[in-house]
């Protein structure tokens, strides 16, 4: 138990110190009035607001956002992998799809928000659609590029064993693409949080993004940042979870 604590301190001690320093500096800067509190509130004010609104934030808005993020992520992963794999297997598909994927990323979401509302109404699906649009792209790119990552010699070997395209894909290409795919997943899960936030701005009645927007209109910066704090925390936790999965999956990879 002691050593685990020690290890933890070693790993995250520096991080904690830096965080404490930065937060103190931030508090000081705001207290001194270098930055107006309504633009950037002091950490203490954010904390107070967090405590004040804890019930609302934790029991109402956080679960709503979390749900959007998780459903959005699952759909992004499935669709992203599928599209990436599809593009890998079919050159015509790749040629046709890639421009549309890039278009889907460059269209400002707010410009098509009425379309979303037309199609999905104010249900959770409009938020999930936005989340999906924000988060699937890194998965597609990293899956597609990962699958391109060579391994020709292994592929040939498996061909001589009579393996079909699918078996080669499963046995060689996926393991080789895994590091790249996991990179994409890590980005994607963060973008899911962003996407859910944007989705809620485009029309919602609950969620951390909704809350932050409402409070922002009210110039209640401390409450806005309390919501952002939770959003960031959500992002970090999800990111770390994927990193953990990555570590597990790539454990025996460092010698390739």
């Amino acid at each position, binding site marked *: 138990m002691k050593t685990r604590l020690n290890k933890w301190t070693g790993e995250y001690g520096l991080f904690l110190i830096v965080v404490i320093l930065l937060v103190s500096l931030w508090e000081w800067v705001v207290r001194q009035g270098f930055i107006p509190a309504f633009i950037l509130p002091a950490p203490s004010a954010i904390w107070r607001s967090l405590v004040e609104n804890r019930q609302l934030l934790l029991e109402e808005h956080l679960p709503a956002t979390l749900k959007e993020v998780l459903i959005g992520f699952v759909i992004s992963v499935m669709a992203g992998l599928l599209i990436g794999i599809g593009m890998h297997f079919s050159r015509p598909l790749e040629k046709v799809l890639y421009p549309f994927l890039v278009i889907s990323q460059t269209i400002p979401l707010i410009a098509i928000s009425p379309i979303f*509302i*037309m199609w999905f109404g104010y249900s959770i699906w409009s938020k999930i659609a936005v989340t999906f649009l924000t988060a699937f792209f890194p998965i597609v790119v990293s899956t597609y590029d990962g699958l391109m990552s060579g391994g020709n010699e292994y592929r040939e070997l498996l061909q001589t064993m009579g393996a079909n395209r699918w078996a080669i894909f499963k046995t060689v290409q996926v393991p080789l693409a895994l590091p790249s795919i996991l990179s994409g997943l890590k980005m994607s899960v963060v973008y899911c949080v962003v996407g859910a936030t944007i989705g809620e701005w*485009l*029309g919602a*009645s609950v969620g951390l993004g909704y809350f932050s927007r409402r409070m922002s209109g009210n110039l209640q910066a401390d409450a806005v940042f309390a919501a952002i704090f939770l959003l960031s925390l959500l992002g970090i936790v999800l990111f770390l979870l994927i990193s953990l999965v990555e570590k597990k999956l790539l454990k025996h990879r460092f010698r390739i």
Partner: protein
Amino acid sequence: GKSDEKTAGTSTSSGDQKLEKVSLMLDWYPNAVHSFLFVANEKGYFKEQGLDVDIQMPADTNDPLRLVAANKIDMALSYQPQVLVARGEDIPVQSFAALVRHPLNQLMVPADGSIQTPKDLEGKTIGYPSIPLDEAIVKTMIKSDGGDADKLKMVDVGWDLIPAMATKKTDALMGGYINHEKLLLEKEGHPMRTINPADYGVPDYYELVLVGSEKGLKQNSGLYKKFIAAITKGQAYVAAHPEEGLAILMNHEDKTSPLDKEIETKSLEILLPLMDAKEKPFGYQDPDTWEKVAKWLESTNIIKQKLKAEDAFINF
């Protein structure tokens, strides 16, 4: 999901009669100006009329108009000039009630600054959210005050009206509301002087109107009549008991995003007289106002095609 459940809840509580579903999209997030809606809901005025109103919040101030026109929602809150602009773009919407009868969107300058009238803006920087309408208002104001509108520097400040002013990046502000941005700036220690566009050549337009689609208003006029009856009652109640009216709004909002009580109280104080139609019924629209606003919009080139102002509204 959530709001559906809530409305479903109210409809079951009424029990005996079947309620007609109505969807309404606000112009912005719920605030003091919407008190009458929440009062009408809470006090059962909608139910009395057989209505079950589902209140939505928009992504963008222009979404309500489009979604109403597309018959995706039944009615929406918008702005009188915007209704005309929409009609100019062949978006089939009509206003069926004027809620706030005078401009809230006023020119704001620092209270302790040198700018007294619009012509003092010459050579100054003014922040605005890059809406052509705001641009036209400012230019008309300066021109009517005898100034040169070309000597004005207009900066798009995006959505950050308050910080633009508070951090002194701009000398004046257009696009802020006297019942919101002004109050917030004051609270942060930046008192503002407001100059009403209506005093400087801009027609005294209706800031907030209720709109429906041409088709909906024609086919389903009964629904809109019932709705007006309910909100008239709601507004009357708010006018009579502003504190309680506000409390109902606040109470509703506390469930998700608490409002600043102080600001909203002041806001309602400002709003109530501006919403009062005096001897006319609540929501009544004066054809003359519509005519004037349409003329002005044409003269400023914001609307490029000739409009029949009387088609833009209906009085029930």
